[in-house]
């Protein structure tokens, strides 16, 4: 102690380094603010096309869809340069084709998801998860070509709405499997264990306990999958022809659908054609929006009742 002079003592009292808390330098502050602005701008940029597309579709299409015949009539007997008529036939085709696809894809997809979550072990399960990812990435035109090569070229079936549905099944399957998988995984294991403890076999546990618990999420997942395939244009282009009037035969003959009608009328240079193009686009978006809304409502209602 004696060796320490007064000056040395004060040196020890002081921190060895300058204060740790220094103000953030100007350059760093500028960079930080710049980054914030850039990221916010990126978000704003994404909203531009969304708003722009929706605005164009609504403003250009509203004139057509408020007409009294739009929802109740087909294009039968309407000339290209004549406005009027409706898209009832195309709405019918869109709904029927995607509904038939859903009728095949939903059970198949749910069972595949059950397999992956509840039973899947070993190599087949691994390959299946991989293939679901690959199937999700298969372009719609390839799915359409496949159905063409199999159903039409090999089996000799005619071009038909059912062929379109088959292609849509391929596009819908991965979406259904994914969303069902997610929902099944969310079901707590305690529920399964409680069921086993009561002596209920595994399959019954899945059917009566696991799937009902996951149902709200699964149903909204299905509706979103349906919305996704509704707007698909490539399959209808390859697999079925356009018809101006209603065709109720699923297995033969041309059948209109909204995307096909849009594509068809795009080649029509008349003002009436343009009107129909935008009108059909708005109708399609309204259908999809309705499915999205239904998905949200189902999710909310069913989850609350629990």
């Amino acid at each position, binding site marked *: 102690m004696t060796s320490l002079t007064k000056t040395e003592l004060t040196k020890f009292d002081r921190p060895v380094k300058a204060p740790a808390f220094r103000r953030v330098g100007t350059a760093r*502050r500028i960079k*930080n603010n710049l*980054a914030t602005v850039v*990221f*916010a701008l*990126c*978000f704003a940029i*994404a909203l531009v096309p*969304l708003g*722009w597309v*929706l605005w*164009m*579709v609504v403003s250009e299409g509203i004139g057509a869809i408020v007409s009294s015949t739009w929802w109740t009539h087909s294009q039968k007997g309407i000339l290209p340069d004549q406005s009027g008529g409706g898209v009832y036939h195309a709405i019918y085709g869109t709904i029927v084709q995607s509904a038939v696809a859903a009728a095949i894809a939903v059970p198949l997809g749910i*069972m*595949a998801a059950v*397999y992956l979550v*509840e*039973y899947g072990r070993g190599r*087949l*399960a691994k390959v*299946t998860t*991989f293939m679901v*990812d*690959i*199937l*999700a*990435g*298969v*372009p719609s*035109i*390839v799915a359409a*070509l*496949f159905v*063409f*090569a199999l159903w039409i*070229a090999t089996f000799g079936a005619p071009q038909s709405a059912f062929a379109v549905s088959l292609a849509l099944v*391929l596009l819908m399957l991965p979406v259904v499997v994914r969303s069902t998988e997610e929902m099944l*995984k969310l079901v707590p294991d305690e529920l399964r264990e409680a069921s*086993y*403890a*009561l*002596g*209920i*076999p*595994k*399959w019954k546990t899945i*059917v009566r306990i696991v799937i009902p618990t996951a149902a709200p999420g699964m149903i909204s997942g299905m509706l979103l999958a349906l*919305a996704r395939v*509704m*707007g698909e*244009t*490539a399959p209808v*282009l*390859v697999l079925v022809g356009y018809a101006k009037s209603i065709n109720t035969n699923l297995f033969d003959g041309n059948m209109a659908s909204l*995307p096909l009608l*849009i*594509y068809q009328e*795009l080649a029509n240079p008349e003002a009436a054609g343009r009107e129909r193009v*935008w009108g059909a686009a708005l109708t*399609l978006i309204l259908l999809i929006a309705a499915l999205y809304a239904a998905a949200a409502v189902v999710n909310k209602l069913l989850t609350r009742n629990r």
Partner: protein
Amino acid sequence: MTVHPEVTGSDLSESTGPLPAGETAQMPNEPRTDQAAGVGTAPHSGRAETIFRSMATASGAIIVAAIALIALFLLIRAVPSLRADTVNFFTSTEFDTTDPDNLRFGIKDLLMVTVLSSVFALVIAVPIGVGIALFLTHYAPKALARPFAMLVDLLAAVPSIVFGLWGFLVLAPKIEPVQRFLNDNLGWLFLFADGNVSIGGGGTIFTAGLVLAVMILPIITSVSREVFNLTPTAHIEAALALGATKWEVVRMTVLPYGRSGVIAGSMLGLGRALGETIAVLVVLRTSAQAGNWSLFDGGYTFASKIASAASEFSSPLPTGAYIAAGFVLFALTFVVNALARLAAGGKVNG
């Protein structure tokens, strides 16, 4: 995860004595009580269990089979046409199938247009998508992040034909000055050189790429968002404790952690862009000459070429030419999607 009834099953088989090997393979999925309490439903539910499990397994197998069948049937239909092809399939820019006795089709130009438009879309969409994902996960107010994210996801809900419509009728005339400017000032670079279609028409790879960029934005954003959200809080807090600004936190913890996710998302986006059909078909103008890697070229992508000829699929040989192109597209997207999965180190959402 799922329960592992194997444990209870094997306990059981030990306590009740040895079982034939064939039976133990199926037993493990049975809950203990079925046999132990002698409920008597065991044989019945055992059969039901087997049926149910086989149905589930079959559904999984159908998906695997579907992919194999796609490859198989496309090949079966493509091979005769490839045999009849009088020019080289990979190096020819011709695609003439009007005369079934003299098929002349090659994919060089299709490949050029497909790759150029998709890569251009990716170059635009990835930085913006990553920016949006960062904004949504680390900048936007917590209460607004979800609705904001839903807005971006809404882009994915718009059907591609509507994007095509918008790109062709609305966007193309609007961005014509931008294209002219790039062509006039950067024309010395091959990307902005004079193309084989008129810029005034708007149907260039440039326009198509922009539309594709908008279409793949949601997938890139959502995959990136998912990984950015997973950045360990400890990393972020450590960076903050060292006095990092928010940007430095993002640069030093969030971005390195999320890199694989960004790559996976970009790959998925690329896969989408490669296979997009109708939007490209509506937007792109066509030209008799082959393109030369300029953004102001026109032409067909694989997908739009197939779709454009779809109404003429009647005789097998010409159709096979398009199916061959479709097979190449399938192989391309298969590789890109497999890479995406690899990059993510497992399952990716999309």
